[in-house]
């Protein structure tokens, strides 16, 4: 009764037989052991489970594993490789430099949502950053340092392209 799915996660092809009702976030966490993706609400409201699916930031808690069949997925564990310099991704650096996190629970999802934003809009205004992150809740930071972190990353990425 299982369904075989094949997903490319952080550059590696993975194939498993899964229950059709298995949530993608549980596939990542329990089957692949990628526990950097967190679960905060199971209703796609908090954004803690955000991953990049075919380049788009999606909430993996309301996605079935079978729906991800054939997709290319990046989780927080694979993000540094996207940065292209062997170290942290500029968004990760921004969160560290600007104190964009406290308890860290929302952070992986917040970082991936910010990565999607900067891919679509490399020079976002503060207002645009706040709008783009409206689907990701943080209870610790009050968001200001998160905005600073995204601005830091935008500058750093722009400098890297020149």
């Amino acid at each position: 009764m299982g369904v075989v799915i094949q997903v490319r996660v952080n550059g590696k092809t993975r194939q498993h037989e899964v229950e059709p009702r298995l949530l993608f976030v549980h596939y990542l966490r329990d089957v692949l052991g990628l526990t950097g993706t967190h679960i905060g609400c199971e209703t796609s409201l908090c954004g803690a489970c955000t991953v990049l699916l075919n380049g788009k930031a999606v909430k993996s808690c309301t996605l079935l594993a079978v729906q991800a069949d054939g997709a290319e997925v990046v989780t927080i564990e694979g993000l540094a490789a996207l940065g292209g310099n062997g170290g942290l991704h500029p968004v990760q650096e921004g969160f560290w430099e600007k104190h964009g996190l406290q308890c860290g629970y929302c952070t992986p999802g917040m970082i991936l949502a910010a990565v999607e934003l900067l891919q679509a809009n490399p020079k976002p205004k503060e207002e645009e950053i706040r709008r783009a992150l409206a689907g990701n809740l943080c209870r610790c930071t009050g968001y200001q340092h998160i905005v600073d972190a995204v601005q830091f990353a935008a500058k750093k990425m722009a400098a890297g392209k020149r």
Partner: protein
Amino acid sequence: MATATRYIGRPLKRKEDPRLIQGLAHYVDDLRLPEMHYVAFVRSPHAHARIRSIDTTRAQTAPGVLAVLTGQDLDKAMGVIPCAAQLPEMKLALRPPLAKERVLFVGEPVALVVAADRYTARDAAELVEVEYEPLTPVVDPEKALAKGAPVLHPQYSDNVAYRWELEGGDVKAAFAKADKVIRQRMVNQRLIPVAMEPRAVVADYQPGENQLTVWSSTQIPHLLRTQIAAVLGVPEYVVHVIAPEVGGGFGSKLNVYAEEVLVAHLAMRLGKPMKWTESRRENFQATIHGRDQIATMELAVRRDGTILGLRCRILADLGAYYQLLTPLIPTLTGLMICGCYKIPAVRVEITGVFTNKMATDAYRGAGRPEATYFIERAMDLVAAELKKDPAEIRRKNFPQPKEFPYATPTGLIYDSANYQKSLDAALKKSNYRKLRAQQAKLRRQGRYLGIGLSTYVEICAMGPSSAMPAGGWESATVRVEPTGKVNVLTGASPHGQGQETSFAQIAADLLGLEPDDIRVVHGDTAVVPYGIGTFGSRATAVGGTAVYTALTKVRDKLAAIAGHILQEDPKRLVFRDRKIFLKSNPAKSLAFAEAVSAAYVAKTLPPGMEPGLEATHFFEPSNFTFPFGAHVAVVEVDAETGEVHLLRYVAVDDCGRVINPLLVDGQVHGGIVQSLGQAFLEEAVYDENGQLLTGELTDYAIPRAWDVPRLETARTVTPSPVNPLGVKGVGEAGTIGATPALINAVVDALAPFGVRHLDMPARRERIWQLIRRARQAGSRPTARRAGAGRDRRVR
């Protein structure tokens, strides 16, 4: 001996971040053990009911199910959920971990299922059939006091949990000689803490070693260990608690929960590792709630604005049962009700009441946001009544800086402050005078700007043990390894506050090392000495002082060793750049690691000195600390829609000496935004049947990034005399100071409509109705659309 300050006060980026930004940290739900089983709870759908029967047959026989247990199965296995608070003549309301005869709130666990995976456990939980006989629920705290109201705890005659009174000064005389008495009823609504990581517990029992290891998302690993041992009736040395990465607490994890002791019990009973992870719905129903007080404030004032006396009656909705500190929280409101004003006479009466809801307990600020809200709203009412500026009314009633330490009529000693200075700084930073002029101009155009002030003081660094339910000290061990690397073990249990960094800054300065030479360890009862934990803005002021003192002990010993080797007076040695050297002749030096090595090799120690290099200190504070500050909120209210646009927020806070300004800013920002949630968005709503209508994030709005403008923060620095670091604490400042500033701003904006008060959350429909009512009463100004073109709004 001299110590250079090189890291204290600097905005170092955090040592804890690399693991958190790469998905390498481990929260409880990230742990997986061989043969681990999953626990799911069957919870009451009724607010008040008798349990007639529970049929577990179908669940028990479902494939993959290991066990199904009810309250009856646990009868002799465990005690009740503990409450550490004791007040005179307080009724007991202790809860068995699983309900037995009756349920008293929606979400109370009545049975549990253990299965091989989490999906199977949840499926099987739905197969448990519970037959209830519904009873009349008691939801409204005022109606709960009425004669004939159903009684929650039948061993008592009514729903009053306790009455608590406090009086200082001559209150009768103060009110007798007052020119005016200002009265207002205010509601401080029930809130849900919403830490981003729901609670989670993993437990593993090894019978050979007789060790029960419990990983829990908690703020108090040691207290939890003691209480698990007590509830399970096992020696404390059997229990080992680890708080791994904890995804936020805000007081909601400063507790001992039924699920924690049950999962621990199951690991011992069934011989398999157990995991339970809370769903967000469970988190809303069965993790503590905050606030929920109704207050009637009365201020006796002279015509010139001098406050002569204060009377406050508070009705505190405690919910159905006590959790760890439930009854105590409203008394903190009572103690802090005078705020930062010199009020010579005060009387507080608190009634704690049982209702069919989840327990209230410590939520960020815990009693002090309520006090600050009540007094700060009342001060604005005084200003409005006397037609004086709210800033001037406040200034008139501040104690002078030279009056500190200042004794309040509620029996506290405020350690140090300069309220005038922080108010001046906030007025200047916000350009207050210009704002008032702008407000007057806009009003003439039919636009409604509101300017709200809050000057607050909070009671922090909890606290002297004499005033705490179970110890208010904190511990630290500094253990220097033979190679010269340093472990700082703290009894505090940070979960986002950043003490792995700030304590390393303190250690680096005291020992003349780099922060990378130091590792701060916390949250593991087998590794760090007994500690109290992280809450009440205490970790740095109390825990940091323990670290500081343990460090000085280590440094003194090292200086004696180095002095002996160098043949110099230890008092003339300096610790810097990983070296210990003579102040007058830096060439005469010893590497830090060499001196440490000498302590372990033990061949060149001064005669009689014991080898090794480790020191422990239990710091007992002589008093609380009292951080303070002044906040200014600027809003514009759209009179057509009732929408509030938060235009500016200026916060000047004084938390004493600052170890790491980046971390302090982060705490202040986060606190202010939680306040904004209470002021404008959040409210836990139970309907008349006791159903939690705001049962998920779909129905309970916490602030999002676009609800918030850029916050403008600044600081004054008034060191605390209570500890050698001079720190006061900052974890709760924003949540305590900001709510009244925001509501005062909204009320100020609505003044032309004759509005003198509105209860939180100040949602637009509530504001729109107030404006509409004023207009229907006639003679009120019409309005133009406010904030045209702006898309940021508070919903």
